[in-house]
């Protein structure tokens, strides 16, 4: 029998139905309730015509209902596609069109986005909307079914036909040409990581685990399925707490969390505003981060104040599922300049640092980082060309399934066998853990039709979000634009984390000798402290 992601919940529900599975604000859902509700939803979806392999888009912030929906979709043998509820309608439309689906499950504060989608008659004709909440749906939305209809369906598990090689979800990441790319992840991809992580971290049913990243981030799959595999309790972190670092700390304290996992910016934010006391969070056993580099000063801050916890850096792109390598920091770094390695490959994975001819580089030398192993996605959803560009046959292997993924990261392997991250080979940047292709921002700015030239560069800051997005622009002759008007206009096409925070108008962008935009010069212009330094 296939082992699918939803089976972990079913197992806990049969053995410990009263055990807590989810906590959100004052609400608590047991494994028994999670199992029963998701079985009902799966039956409802099947009844409505949802077929095996269908894509079901989720437009709903993280909530118990949304997690019930994820499990319900999997139990209906379909794939869930978590959309960023903070993205503008135009971008959400692109993702929905790209995954060619008929189903939207929505809930929470998504009224304007959902109404915006439904205002398009073509969308309304081709899509069925399910409203997950017990509250009335937003105005202008006529759902096919809603949360209250679930009660009429049986809570018994429906028969599943999926196998481990079938898709569990599609996650969209920024695309350099302006269209987000959908990464398809199978049940087996997620399972291999969870089956390494749960024993490695020693997760048990007594753990209380944070769910910090939003659901369209692949880290959230570790939060959910790592918790369910161990029968632990998942504490959903309300996203608005991200604004107030002391409230994040308060949640860790009050909920007595044993595991915190987030992008580095959340840890850095708490460190910058000094909200962690010495000996704080006595229950906390592990702190994990992934998505980008955690500044070493922030790591030192945490390790000094919470010496009873372990600290693990996880590394890996969405295309290789959650994480491919790990490094548990053995002792508090002695110096703020110390570089924390991305470490060693997780079981079933391999990290390869290769030169241009795909030969391994000697120890200590920079090369391109490739990943090989069971976590590799089958590829980008219905995009064989992009898939071929990023997933290559393993050199010298006769097996067609033996592939390597080109991460676009630069790295070296030390004589200690540990891999160190050394930057990007292209124009992708990380901001607050989000992968952002600068080309996607530039494409959206050009599409406004008010600029003659524009370029976006990422400038490292000492702020907690790592990289500041900076836009240099030249308005079209006779067109009056201001940073505020540009930002407002481009916000209709891009989510907030992709909006440039610094702007400079030019008569002409600086060029290199061969006529290309001089991005290095632009970075200097946007980093006055670097320029004025002696």
């Amino acid at each position, binding site marked *: 029998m296939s082992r699918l992601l939803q089976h972990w919940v079913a197992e806990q529900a049969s053995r410990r139905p009263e055990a807590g599975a989810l906590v959100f604000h004052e609400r608590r859902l047991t494994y028994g309730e999670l199992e029963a509700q998701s079985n009902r939803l799966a039956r409802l979806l099947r009844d409505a015509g949802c077929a095996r392999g269908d894509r079901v888009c989720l437009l709903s912030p993280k909530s118990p209902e949304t997690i019930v929906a994820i499990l319900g979709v999997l139990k209906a043998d379909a794939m869930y596609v978590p959309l960023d509820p*903070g993205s503008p309608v135009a971008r959400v439309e692109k993702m929905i069109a790209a995954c060619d689906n008929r189903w939207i499950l929505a809930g929470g*504060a998504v009224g*304007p986005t959902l109404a915006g989608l439904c205002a398009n008659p073509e969308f309304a004709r081709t899509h069925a909307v399910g409203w997950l909440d017990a509250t009335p749906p937003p105005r202008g939305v006529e759902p096919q079914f809603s949360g209250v209809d679930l009660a009429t369906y049986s809570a018994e598990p429906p028969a599943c036909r999926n196998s481990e090689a079938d898709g569990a979800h599609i996650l969209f990441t920024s695309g350099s040409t302006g269209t987000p790319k959908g990464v398809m992840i199978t049940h087996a991809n997620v399972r291999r990581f969870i089956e390494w992580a749960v024993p490695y971290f020693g997760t048990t049913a007594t753990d209380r685990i944070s769910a910090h990243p939003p659901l369209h981030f692949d880290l959230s799959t570790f939060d959910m399925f790592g918790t369910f595999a161990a029968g632990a309790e998942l504490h959903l972190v309300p*996203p*608005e*707490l*991200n*604004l*107030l*670092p*002391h*409230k994040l700390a308060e949640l860790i304290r009050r909920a007595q969390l044993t595991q915190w996992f987030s992008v580095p*910016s959340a840890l850095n*934010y708490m460190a910058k*505003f000094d*909200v962690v006391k010495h000996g704080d969070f006595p229950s906390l056993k592990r702190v994990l981060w992934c998505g980008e580099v955690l500044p070493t000063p922030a790591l030192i801050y945490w390790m000094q104040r919470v010496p009873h916890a372990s600290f693990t850096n996880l590394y890996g792109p969405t295309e290789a599922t959650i994480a491919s390598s790990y490094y548990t920091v053995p002792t508090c770094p002695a110096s703020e300049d110390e570089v924390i390695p991305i470490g060693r490959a997780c079981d079933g994975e391999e990290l390869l640092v290769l030169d241009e001819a795909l030969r391994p580089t000697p120890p200590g030398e920079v090369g391109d980082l490739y990943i090989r192993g069971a976590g590799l996605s089958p590829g980008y959803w219905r995009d064989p060309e992009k898939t071929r560009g990023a997933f290559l046959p393993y050199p010298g292997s006769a097996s067609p399934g033996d592939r390597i993924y080109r991460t676009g990261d630069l790295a070296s392997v030390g004589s200690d066998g540990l891999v160190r991250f050394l930057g990007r080979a292209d124009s992708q940047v990380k901001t*607050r853990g989000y992968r952002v292709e600068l080309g996607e921002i530039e494409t959206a700015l050009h599409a406004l039709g008010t600029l003659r030239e524009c370029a976006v560069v990422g400038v490292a800051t000492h*702020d*907690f*979000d790592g990289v500041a997005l900076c836009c240099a622009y030249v308005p079209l002759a006779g067109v009056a634009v201001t*940073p*505020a*008007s540009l*930002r*407002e206009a481009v916000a209709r096409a891009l*989510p*907030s*984390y992709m909006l440039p*925070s610094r*702007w400079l108008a030019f008569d002409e962008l600086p060029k290199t000798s061969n006529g290309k935009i001089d991005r290095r010069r632009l970075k200097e212009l946007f980093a006055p402290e670097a320029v004025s330094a002696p």
Partner: protein
Amino acid sequence: MTDVRELETRIARLFAERLEVEVPSPDLDLFEAGVVDSLMFVKLLATLEEQFGFRLAFEELEIDDFRTVRHMARFVAAKRRSAEPGRVSASG
């Protein structure tokens, strides 16, 4: 009440001029609309401190005070009333 109205206008202008964001309505939920994220929030607090001459500590802040421009105007008005007279700077 006029005081709060004036403050709303002034805060909306700060958003446009200092944070480069046009806020269409004083009742727009800035968090739900994705206008304010953590980086923006820190800039916003610094701008309010500088413009209204008070000091804000994270520990005394509640999310709801910053949810809309109207809420912020009420918060600023209350903060100014409770501040010592000598600490309030008038220019803006």
